[in-house]
């Protein structure tokens, strides 16, 4: 059940528990993740393969993540880097941005936020990822949030986009309302059942004119299918 927009991450994190959790969580969304426990491992990984994004912890056994960041930028390597910091102070945040980080997230992070930030970073970088997905006459570009139906290009709002991503990751599969809710709304928000129906309704309008359609399986959930 991989996601359409798959990215190749390098996670630099020394805490094994966290590293495994993050890797699992990202893989759940279909991303490819390599994990490095030290800075030297990270350098080995970078030398071996290209990455779309680096997730970088600050305190590592063999040095400070900020030194690594500075060195990367000085060497002219511009792989996007998002720093994961345990400290939330303004000065630290400004500091890492000044050193050349593209963004930062504060631990513990919301994966929806992390993904949004990754998307924003890649969008800003104008990343040339092979991200466009085709399905039943739909041409979906999650990075710039556009949906092509025939010759027409339709813009998607963020939640419509994410809803489409969820459904498009496994066409024909039925997603329960709960499953969709958890991924569409923040855990801190309270959501009514018909909130999802609103987004389903909107998305149906956006895919009108293609072969694709969203079926309501009464009492169970929704699925994307083609006519």
């Amino acid at each position, binding site marked *: 059940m991989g996601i359409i927009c798959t990215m190749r991450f390098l996670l630099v994190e020394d805490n094994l528990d966290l590293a495994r*959790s993050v890797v699992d969580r990202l893989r759940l969304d279909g991303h490819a993740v390599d994990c490095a426990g030290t800075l030297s491992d990270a350098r080995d990984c970078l030398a071996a393969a290209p990455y779309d994004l680096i997730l970088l912890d600050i*305190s590592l056994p063999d040095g400070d993540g900020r030194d690594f960041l500075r060195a990367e930028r000085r060497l002219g390597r511009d792989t996007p880097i998002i720093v994961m910091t345990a400290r939330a102070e*303004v000065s630290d945040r400004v500091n890492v941005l000044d050193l050349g980080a593209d963004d930062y997230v*504060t*631990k513990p992070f919301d994966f929806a936020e992390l993904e949004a930030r990754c998307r924003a970073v890649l969008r800003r970088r104008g990343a040339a990822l092979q991200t466009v997905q085709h399905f039943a006459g739909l041409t979906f570009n999650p990075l710039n949030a556009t949906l092509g139906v025939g010759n027409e290009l339709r813009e998607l709002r963020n939640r419509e986009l994410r809803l489409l991503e969820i459904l498009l990751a496994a066409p024909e599969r039925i997603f329960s309302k709960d499953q969709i809710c958890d991924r569409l709304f923040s855990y801190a*928000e309270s959501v009514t059942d018909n909130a999802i129906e609103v987004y389903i309704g909107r998305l149906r309008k956006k895919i009108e004119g293609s072969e694709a359609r969203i079926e309501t399986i009464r009492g169970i959930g929704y699925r994307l299918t083609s006519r």
Partner: protein
Amino acid sequence: MSQAPLSLRLRLVLQLLGIAAVLAILLYFTVRTIAEQAAEATHDGVLGAATLAIAERLQGGDSGVGIDLPYEAFSILGSISADRVFYRIEAAGKTLTGYADLPLPPRTGASVAPVFYTAPYRDTQVRIAAVKRTVLVARVAVPVLVVVAQTQLGQDAIAQRVARRAALVGLGSFILAAVLSLLTTGSVLRPINRLAEAVGRRGPQDLRAVDHPTPAELRPLVSALNGFIARLRGALSRTETFIAEAAHHIRTPLATVRARAEIALRQAGSEDSRETLRAVIRAVEESSRSAGQLLDHATVVYRSDRLADEHVDLSALIARLVMAIEPIAELRDLTIMVAGVENKIVVRGDPPLIESAVRNLLDNAIKYSAQETQIDIGVEKKGKTARIELCDRGRGLAGQRQSRLTGRFQRGENSGDVVGSGLGLTIVEEVAAAHAGRFELTEREGGGTCARLFLPLV
């Protein structure tokens, strides 16, 4: 109980002025005394000379004492000053000529050299010279006393003139000494002031040792200060390390918990376990947010005492913050509209604090906005202040007073299920106060809240 000790400058100035005053008074009296003595000596000399001139013309003879008052003797008495002159010539207890009531010398031991004394005579005080001669009258030795008196108007006039001059000299020297003592005090205290300035100018982060050139007397103070700075730096750095470690050690497992919970939630089947997992995630989020705001608040409190005084361009600051927070807003389909950031609007203040305040406002707006609404943020000049205005379409204030919402750990009654610590608005309010600015919250027309932060322009 104990009064603040006098300032060094005041102490020095007062003591130097005291010394100057004593010296000036001494100078005044010395000049006066010497001048008066000199004037008296001069007058006595002339008076004595006149008396002697008369005495030398005394002659014996058969018929009586021969007296020939020399014109010049009297004339010369008038040459120094226009003083009245009296005289008396007495032989064997009988006044021969002159003013018979002129006082005689207290001791009759008047001799060849003139005796001087002062006595009241008629309507005034007179200075008197008396001299004794013996002449032979019909071969009998007759003692003759010549007494010449002069009023002291001239001498008094000189004394007055001298007193005035002496007072002027005293006053002049006092003023000169006062000016010099002020200059001296200034120059003595200048190194202290320079040192204080050099230390005072430092920003809140500057904990370098003081290497300002200082005179030897101040070196113990400076080295004590440097010792203190070093200890402070050590303590601060240990604290920072500790906080960083602590944050790392708490937040990293929290991140693991959250990630695991999210994964589990994805895979969970029963509604019960899903609800539990949601609660776990919410709890993690809440503790993380609280920790962040507590740190922010601590920073505000710490930095408020020693504000950095820098130029902060609010336009750039807002643009940067909006860009950083936009991905989160997008998650809820919120649009952030920014206005007024085309031109620089510069205020004076502490950049981290101002950023903290604006970020908290933005966080709040995003948290409380209804989904798919718009947040307006703008900055503009209003007279001598810059106004940052941030309006959302959230749940508004529900009639609560601002003072209640900005109190520490106070949350609005309508905050409901939104995660928060209740410190966000406190931080904004404290930052405004620290910058001599103002913060206000108002109900937005058509629903929602408007927050305005006013900061004084440069």
